[in-house]
């Protein structure tokens, strides 16, 4: 079950690609697992490795010296489009990513990320461009992510504010997962079901022709 999400400071992994789809985050051929093992190794697999398994030359940003251990991924517009695979945030989390910063996220990716301790932070395009500039000028700049305060603290002492769904924030800060929350509502669900008959029965065989 999830841990409470704590504030942290980290250097940044910059990946200035827009519309990164979840097929790039974890290619489909690695979706044949029935658990969550080994996903850190296949994160951005086809951008990182050659056919024979050796690293690309020059290496993809994740594999450059000093990148391992960084918890902030700074990406281009509209991150996480495409497939609903939760393997994408699982892989990011397994590699060590705790926040992804973009100007926007695909709906399903955002939901999935929030459930796995990976905070999707959407900021406006101008601030986003400034952040890329900052990291370009000082690749080792350290940012501090404060979820409770909804701010990213920059090295110069200024803060970038961000929005987050208040409910998702509460779940993250408490380390509660949503299933527990909904299970507490079971009496209400039972009451609702009592007045709303099922619309289909998936077990039924073909009824006699009417």
């Amino acid at each position, binding site marked *: 079950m999830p841990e409470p999400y704590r504030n942290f400071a980290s250097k940044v992994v910059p990946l*200035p690609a*827009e*519309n990164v*789809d979840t*097929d*790039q985050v974890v*290619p*489909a*051929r690695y*979706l*044949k*697992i*029935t*658990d*969550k093992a080994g996903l850190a190794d296949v994160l951005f697999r*086809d951008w990182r490795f050659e*056919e024979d398994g050796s690293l690309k030359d020059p290496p993809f940003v994740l594999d450059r010296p000093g990148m391992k251990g960084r918890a902030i991924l700074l990406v281009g*517009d*509209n991150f996480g*489009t*495409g*497939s*609903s*695979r*939760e393997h994408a*945030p699982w892989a990011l989390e397994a590699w060590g990513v705790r926040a992804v910063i973009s100007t*926007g996220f*695909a*709906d*399903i990716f955002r*939901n*999935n990320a929030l*459930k*796995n301790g990976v905070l999707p932070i959407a900021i406006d395009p101008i601030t986003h461009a400034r952040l890329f500039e900052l990291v370009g000028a000082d690749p080792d700049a350290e940012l501090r992510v404060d979820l409770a305060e909804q701010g990213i603290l920059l090295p110069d002492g200024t803060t970038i504010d961000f929005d987050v*769904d*208040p*409910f998702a924030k509460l779940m993250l800060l408490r380390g509660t*997962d*949503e*299933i527990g929350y*909904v*299970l507490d*509502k*079971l009496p*209400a*669900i039972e009451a*609702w079901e009592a007045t*709303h008959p*099922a*619309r*289909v*029965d*998936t*077990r*039924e*065989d*073909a*009824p006699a*022709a*009417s």
Partner: protein
Amino acid sequence: MEQRPRTLVEKIWDDHVVVADEGAPSVLAVDLHLVHEVTSPQAFTGLRQRGLKVRHPERTVATADHSVPTTPRGLPFLDPLAAAQVQQLDTNCREFGIPLHGIGDPSQGIVHVIGPQLGLTQPGMTIVCGDSHTSTHGAFGALAFGIGTSEVEMVLATQTLLQRKPKTYEVRVDGRLTAGVSAKDIILALIARIGIGGGTGHVFEYRGEAIRALTMEQRMTICNMSIEGGARAGLIAPDDTTFEYLHGRTHAPHGPAWDLAVETWRRLPTDDWAAFDRSIAIDASALEPMVTYGTNPGMGIPITSRVPDPAAASDPAHGRALEKALAYMDLTPGQAILGQPVDVVFIGSCTNGRISDLRLAAAALKDRHVAPNVRMMIVPGSDEVKREAEREGLHEIFRAAGAEWREAGCSMCIAMNGDQLAPGQYAVSTSNRNFEGRQGKGGRTFLASPLTAAASAVAGMVADPRLLPGIEAVAGIGGR
């Protein structure tokens, strides 16, 4: 009390809210939960760890589609991982009492093909699946969307989901399609216009004369790719076309219950004067066959156009993205897309793997031959589609044309099962995603309609289906 005018989406939403606590997302009841082998195993593991049961196995249905081979069913799985995953689905369904249409079951097929085919997908329902193309079921006027595996676990355990009410986006398509232009071209044109993030946070409602004129299968093609426009769901109001399709299907209401259901469904369409958060209008009569040239579904152009030039892009980030896409595709800015040689043509997937799609392909392939440089794979969306095609003799036309006629599954749409492009190969594909590596590592995809795909297979290069002799007769062929 006079009710405020509401959209179709709002009506379905209001009908399914179980709890709406201040500040929290609503607890939304789920009528139908579809399950497949790839996005469910970890959810069942979660249930076991918590000691939970599946709350409504009888509102849940499973199939194996993504990683199943499309070679003859008697042959073994070559991939032990895929075999284990399909086996795990079987174990999970047995343990939790979920009906499974697995390999060998006459109802097996792509999850978004079998739901409608079995009559499980019905107007006014909420439908979810751990799969982004769940939007397909919106064609019936259902609120249907993809979810992640944590949410799959939530729905298994509670038959509900935590959701914020989505915004609404009206997509109005008026005018009449011309011969050789099809539903696939409407949706590719929409995505090319608004971009792959254009519908984020919204649900599309497709309306207008051109939408009303479509068959259910064509409507499914459109709703299917809502997610490629960034919208989690896309709906079409139910009408007589919908009811006619559903009537008599296995899980559709029967007898007096049918009449009652139709009466309820007739109240679903968006009220006059209901407001949408956003709107766009498309003129169907001005559309040409569409084809993508890049590495996301928004990179699409009318088939007679030229590949755009990154240097002319509106902003530098777009220019870089375009440059990267063209480098991956090995295409030159300004080149024609017509005449681009192709190695593989794939007809299938939850977008275009239904019987009407196969009929179109057959009409285009009849008495013709696939070009010698092209491998053409035709993969029915379900076992039922396969049987129907064979009853109609379509498979004979495909084989005579030199195409491969295979078993049902997702196949080369996602390339998890061994059906894939070799690095550098070009494919015209009727599926929905042209992301880097989607159809095989290093493979290059042109998304298009079944007609364009079939015309391209014959020509050995990207070809305009409007130039096929007899196209006027072909264009009218629809699904049931």
